[in-house]
């Protein structure tokens, strides 16, 4: 496996990025020779998801503790890759949220900037850094989970081998460095040995697992191994959110000017 830096780490933030910012990119092609160095594994996994842009239509299903399901649909577009990307997520259903958009501008060295646009009152609002740990609009993802972070913001330890859905995986522990503000104190990431795709992430706060993300339906899309279904479980609430990706494309032609506040106000 080649060594190099790729800005993605095993945490829900990464999951968010995977799920919502570069979701399908996890299913990367298998590199030459697996490395057992934890950091190298993560870097390689991220490298294999590199793409200039991405677009998909998502179905978000929230299953509450009583089993009730609520659906939302959105379109997702991302320009750029890993830590320097910009993405726009626009809700298309149900009718009462149609048109609401979220702009995420990621930075390699700091937290992302996030804005939300509500067409009914023609107002944008900034999602404050302090609010990133809150749930992302009723799902089991948090706003922090939408961020892309640089790999240098975390430390990694190889915690052993494991299997997920019958696939052999590396089990890697990541902890945020002091400079990094996060709601999670620790994350365990399962990366498949066969294709470097993420298989599972468990995020903990003070040794308590709070969220668990499972990747499934992993397919090769335009050379990138991508999970088509992601399921986040809020361990404490007992609720889960499933994100299904449709019409997924990589390296589609997108314009930089479509990823600004002015642009999301226009559309």
């Amino acid at each position, binding site marked *: 496996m080649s060594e190099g830096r790729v800005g993605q780490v095993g945490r829900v933030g990464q999951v968010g990025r995977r799920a919502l910012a570069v979701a399908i990119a996890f299913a990367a092609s298998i590199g030459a020779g697996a490395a057992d160095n934890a950091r190298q594994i993560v870097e390689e996994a991220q490298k294999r998801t590199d793409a200039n842009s991405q677009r998909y239509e998502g179905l978000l299903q929230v299953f509450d503790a009583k089993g009730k399901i*609520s659906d939302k649909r959105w379109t997702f577009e991302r320009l750029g890759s890993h830590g320097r990307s910009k993405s726009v997520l626009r809700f298309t259903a149900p009718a009462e*949220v149609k048109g*609401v958009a979220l702009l995420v501008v990621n930075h390699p060295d700091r937290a992302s900037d996030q804005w939300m646009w509500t067409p009914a009152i023609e*107002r944008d609002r900034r999602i*404050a850094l302090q*609010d990133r740990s*809150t749930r992302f*609009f*009723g*799902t089991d993802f948090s706003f922090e989970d939408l961020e892309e972070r640089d790999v240098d913001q975390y430390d990694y330890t190889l915690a052993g081998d494991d299997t997920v859905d019958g696939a052999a995986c590396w089990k890697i522990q990541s902890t945020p460095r002091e400079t990094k503000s996060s709601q999670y104190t620790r994350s365990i990431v399962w990366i498949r040995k066969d294709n470097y795709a993420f298989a599972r992430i468990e995020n903990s706060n003070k040794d308590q697992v709070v969220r668990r993300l499972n990747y499934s339906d992993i397919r090769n899309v335009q050379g990138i191994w991508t999970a088509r279904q992601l399921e986040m479980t809020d361990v404490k609430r007992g609720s889960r959110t499933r994100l299904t990706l449709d019409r997924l494309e990589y390296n589609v032609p997108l314009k930089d000017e479509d990823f600004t506040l002015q642009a999301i106000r226009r559309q």
Partner: protein
Amino acid sequence: MFILLRLISWPYFRKHVLRTALTTAGIVLGVAVFVGMHTANQSVLFAFSHTVDRIAGKTELQVSAGETGFDEAVLDKVQSASSVRVAVPVIEAIADTKLKGQGNLLVLGVDMTGDRSLRDYDLESGEDAVIDDPLVFLAQPDSIILAKEFADKNGIAVGSRVTLGTAEGDKAFAVRGVMKSSGLTSAFGGNLAIMDIYAAQKMFGRGRMFDRIDVALKPNRTLADAEQEITAIVGPGFQVEPPSGRGQQFEAMLAAYSMMVGISSLFALFIGMFIIYNSFSIAVTQRRSEIGILRALGATRRQIRWLFLGESAVTGLVGSIGGVLFGVLIARGIAASIGTLIADVYGVAQHADELATNPALLALALAIGVGTSIVAAAIPARNAARVDPVQALQKGKYQVLSAGESRTRAVAAAICGVISIGCLLAANSRPIFYVGYVLAILVALLLGPLLSLALAKAIRPVLKWARPVEGALAADSLIQAPRRTSASVAALMLSLALVIAFAGMARASYDSIITWMETALNPELFILPSQSVVSRTIRFPSSMAAEVAAIPGVEHVQMVRDARIVFRKTPVMLVAVEVNNIAKTARLPPVAGNPDEMYRKAAAGEGLMVSDNLAQLQHLSLGETLEIPAPEGVIRLPIVGIVVDYSDQQGTILMDRGLFARYWKDDSVNIFRIYVKQGAPIADVRQRILEQYAGQRQVFVLTNDELKRYILKVTDQWFGLTSVQIAVAVLVAILGIVNTLTVSITDRRRELGVLQAVGGLHRQIRGTIWIEALSIGTLGLVLGFALGAINLYYILQIVHHDIAGMRLDYVFPISTVFALVPTILGAAFVAAIWPAESAVHGSLVEALEYE
């Protein structure tokens, strides 16, 4: 001591039930007014603090800029502070519910994305997703969450629609959730609704502004450090303080009102004290022979003094207990009235739903009641102790003022008078001024008996001429018992002096306000966003000015933006107007400053104008540089003019609108002043304005007369307290006269009996007593008006320097005098009916056996 009370006092009380009741009533009245006023005031303050506290949730600090609000960008700055864990924006608005009898709803505009870190929005019913998934809530600006209390009261369920008055007119809101009963929902009496903050901005015309930012700190950060850090970040134009600071500002805003309440309750206690003094003075004179016998039997002076003090303490205790109970009973009504007053005068909607009965206050009231009673009885008790047993048995002599006593009184009065005038001349110091005031009252009290006697002698010929028998008898009764007469006359004099002072102050205030209104409020029409002139919850965009100006019949439009800001830790009113524009139509004459220069500099943004009352209360002078903290920096400008302006009791700062827009980043409007073209029917123009905005915007158009009537109505409410005081004073005067006449009849039972025995007719007896009562009334009126004239001067000075800063002209309230003469004489006559009938129908044999 207790034996004496049981053997001597108890039978006396039982024998004179009416007088005992009247005496106790004096204390009941005083304590009840004290307890009622303070409890009501405290209840309203408590209700406000309660609401602030409940809404604050886990908020540790609040960042605000008075009432003006501030630009949204400040939020980022506050969130960037290292000590801040959570900082969320808030808008508060009061919206008319359009539901009969339900009044207003406090709408809390919050950003649900992060606000749950500070406040608990658990739902009683409705989709949890409304809270958990604020997306729908945020995406739909008609979303609202109601407190369970309000929903239950009005039978509202999730899915219902509720209509509220907004800047865009009446709007139907979808109830997307009902909050469980909790601390938050109990705020504002349960009339609470939650709305998305950005929707609230739109609905209430707030532009891109927030009212405040609620902050929770990171662990291990102290409030003081965080306050310092945030203040350094946002600048001096902001208040960074714990939520309780809002309560303190509310209290500061009501300072003048609270002072009025304090004065009223003290006045009531003072009156009660006088009733006690009056009653015990009469009791001492009446029981003089009894005291003489006790002394002859070996009772010491000390025992006699303690006997009377003991009686007064018991009376005080019984009266105080009654007063406390009665006070708590009337407090709710007073609190409701204060709530209405606060809403109408200060534009702050706050009603006390529960009484804040403070045990310490009640205990204090009991102590004050008993203490007042003992103090009031101290002089009569001392006099009782000094009774000479031999002289005590000489009937009538004790009622006479000795030449020595008269001389002593005259000398003491002269000394006090000279010192009082001296204090007045050197009244730079407020304590000296108040000493002078007290001495002036003391002079009146010292001279009271002498003047009563002199006046009684002066009216004797008139009375004798009018009714030869009854008139002469009545006058002689007054002349022969000046001590008895003077106590009642003095009580009447004091009451009337206070009535004259309050009435004079009220009259002068009305006159000043009317004069100000004539100059300042001269447009034909006023456009307001709310029914209440003082409510600043909803605002207009400045773009409306051009639209209104284009309406046929409109000659001229002026924009006014007013809001309370915190200036030198006091909430004062900031009024931003187009100075150039206003100067052409409503030119206020300056109290200090050159009128042309004042308007020119203020219009150019080179100076500020301040109201006379602000200058007085904050000790400001012409040319002085003011520092006005604003969100965009500190305005440092000189005072270029001091004008009479009654926009606010705490004072007003007037500045040009351009300056305000620059420093507050706010060009919204509270009021449009509309001048109508000559010849254009005002009613038609008004109708056109209403039609222009029908269904689009909530607009209220008041005519000049309607606005002035509104202001006068509010002024009436403000002086409602004065009316209560006048009523209490008159009531006390009546009690005093009844008391005096009852004693007079008892004292003169034998005399009256003899009169009847030698052929005196019933009507002559009645006539004598009636005339005596009317004479006491007349003496009280004459002395009361004289002291009132002096008292009015002092009260106007106090109002000017210590309460409202208002410079009021001295105008003796002639109309009040004309109203008081028949009222007091009528009351005196009514007070005489029962004693007269008692004298006529009493047993002649018993009367002749008396003494």
